[in-house]
């Protein structure tokens, strides 16, 4: 068992962290705005992916900042899950499209509480 010893790297400067966080927040915000404003289910799905990546970026940034690999581990997890989920979600979207011949999410609002 002679795994390579990870090379210790130096913590990032505070400026680097805030830039990374800003980008992460930007990604997340774009995702939210997109998700809330668009009706096309594929676009909405892409927006959720954007938010995902925003969160993942923040984690990597913090991992770098605090020299802790668990942030990276989480990100790997997120990527895996996101991939799986993308497969499922796209399949669902295709199914939904087949039912109502549209990608507009409002076509499905009758599933809600009020049965709108």
């Amino acid at each position, binding site marked *: 068992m002679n795994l390579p010893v990870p090379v210790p790297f130096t913590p990032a400067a505070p400026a680097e962290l805030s830039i990374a966080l800003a980008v992460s927040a930007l990604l997340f915000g774009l995702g*939210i705005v997109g*998700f*809330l*404003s668009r*009706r096309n289910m594929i676009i*909405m799905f892409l927006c959720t992916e954007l938010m995902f990546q925003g969160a993942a970026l923040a984690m990597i940034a913090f991992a770098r900042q605090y020299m802790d690999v668990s942030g990276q581990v989480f990100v790997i997890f997120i990527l895996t899950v996101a991939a799986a989920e993308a497969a499922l979600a796209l399949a669902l979207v295709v199914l939904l499209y087949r039912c109502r011949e549209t990608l507009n*999410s*409002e076509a*499905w*609002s*009758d*599933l*809600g*509480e*009020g*049965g*709108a």
Partner: protein
Amino acid sequence: MTTLLAAIPKATIAPELSWLGLAILLPLVSAVVCALAGAFRCKNKFPAVVTSIALGASFVVILQAYLAYSGPVVVPIFQWIEFAWGSGGAFKSFEANCSLYIDSLTLFWMLFVTGLGTLITVYASEYMEGDRGKGYARFFFGISIFLFSMSSLVMGDNLVMLYLGWEGVGLASYLLIGYDYHRPSAVAAAKKAFIVNRIGDLGLALGIFMLWANYGTLQYDELFAAMNAGGQSSVDWDISVIPFLLMLGAFGKSAQFPLFVWLPDAMEGPTPVSALIHAATMVTAGVYLIARMFPFFELHPDALATVAWIGAGTALLAATIGMRQFDIKRVFAYSTISQLGYMFLGLGVGTTFGACYHTFTHAFFKALLFLTAGAVMHGFAGQLDLRKLSGLRHMPGWKIVSWTMFIGCLWLAAFPWTAAFYSKDVILLKALTSERWDFVLLGWVGLFTAALTAYYTFRVWFRVCAGPVKYEMGAESHGAEHDGHDAHDGHAPAAHAVDSHAAHPHAPRWCINGVLIILAIGAIAAGIPAYREVFFHEPNWAQEMMAHSSAVDGAGLGAAHADPHGSSSGSPDGSHHATVLGMDAHTGLAVVGSAASIGGILIAFVLHLRSRSSADRLLAWLKTRPLIGWIPGAMEHKWYVDEIYHGAFRLPMWLGAQVLSLGDKHFLDGAIVDGIGKLPILVGKVFRPLYGGVLQGYAVTMAGGVGLVLAWVVWIWLRGFN
């Protein structure tokens, strides 16, 4: 406050006498056999034979016990309810075992209970024969259960055994009154009997608790010992409440005011049942209870006086109602209530001897009267209306019935030199010679009632047995005219509507006639103790039986009582010379009593035999009188007691129950419980618009929620931590 308590003989424990338990066991065995016979659809008279033999054997057992009797004994049989606990104060155990308490009072009662039980079972074997294969086994099952319960009531050595029998006879009464269960009136009567009795039973149960709470035991023997030692109340209630509670039970079972209303209705049962249960034996259980617990009735000075007042009042009330009834059995039912009133009067004025002796004589002549009425009913297809029967004694085959009924009527009317004349005499004498003015008054009420009794008794006999031969057959052959008695006891009305014996009266055969003759002889023989006393100055048997039991206080045989008739009545020094109408009390009462009896009979003779139309004219005249015109009608309607009870108790309770029922459904469950159940739904309604089904709506809600949390965090941060 207690009078001088005469010593009650202490009982010895005699396990070797456990064969006495047969008196209870045999009826139970016969009940089981009858039940099995019913289950296997037995079609012959087997149940009757078994019951007769079992009851006869039980009579023999009692007779044997009587002959071998030498003093009170307690016979343990098996442990029934018994448990004990270690810690605590006075109460360390609760014991109510199946044991027998045999003293002369027990034997006195059991002798006539089992004897009459046997005779009436024999009678019923013929009377009920039309029901073979249908209700026959059920009927004798009921009779056996009754005898079982009555035996445990009388022979049990503790009050819980008595209570077992007390409710058991109530059950037997319920089953037998409702024997003809397809008739709603019978079902209602059975129900009424049980429920009214339950009111009394509650009093009895509370009395039992009270006794236990104060004396820590329920066995007679220990109770009497503890009683002599004196007790003090360990609960809220004063110890003197005991007699009133027990009294309530006695009033229920013995059909005294205010709980007498069930007994007339109980006549819905087959006639042998009326004779056995509702005339001769079960209804005397109240007398037995008071006689048994007599010492405890001296715990409160007014307890016995209450019994006397209720007794005399009931006697008068029932007699007035009896005067205006047309159904023979109902007349006899009211006469039973009235005679029971005499017994309670006797107990109340302090002569247990008089009360119990009257119970004894009454058992014979009243059973006889009911059985003759049953014979008439049996022969005339259920006809019991005294207006529709006449001249029975001139009809072939009805001689025995008519003349045994005549004997019964004479005895009920307390005709001079009959047994009932003497037994009633003891009671009235004690009342009239009492130092209490109210007892003297009650004695005169009793005398007046005696005249009424003689009148209504012979009203029946002169109407039914004397006069020209004239009869209508019972409603079985021509529709339901007389409500409640339309069906011949135990016969399905439809199936027997036009059977052979409905067309013409059929005279009773040997089972019925034989029993009638034996009972008539018994009624005459019941006077022997009194004859021995009057003519030979020997001690009265019944009096001696009382004097060696817990009823000794009222037996009138104390050392101070020189006069064997007890006429000096509780004045040991003899300073109080009682007189009745200026004569010596004994002679005076005999004269007045005879006059009352003969006068009543004569009036009945004039109104109901010599010129029957005069009775109607008298009635019509009475009804036109302004002030008293309502009385005959009220008497016919039993003084509206049933209606008053209905209006005062049943109706308000029923309305209350309806209100509660609706309240339970719509308020408690509907408004409150369901209302609380709707709360989450209401809360949900507030937030429902947020989840309208638009995907972005959910997202906005979510984002808004996150935003709010963030804002909160930031606000705390801005406020600073301290």
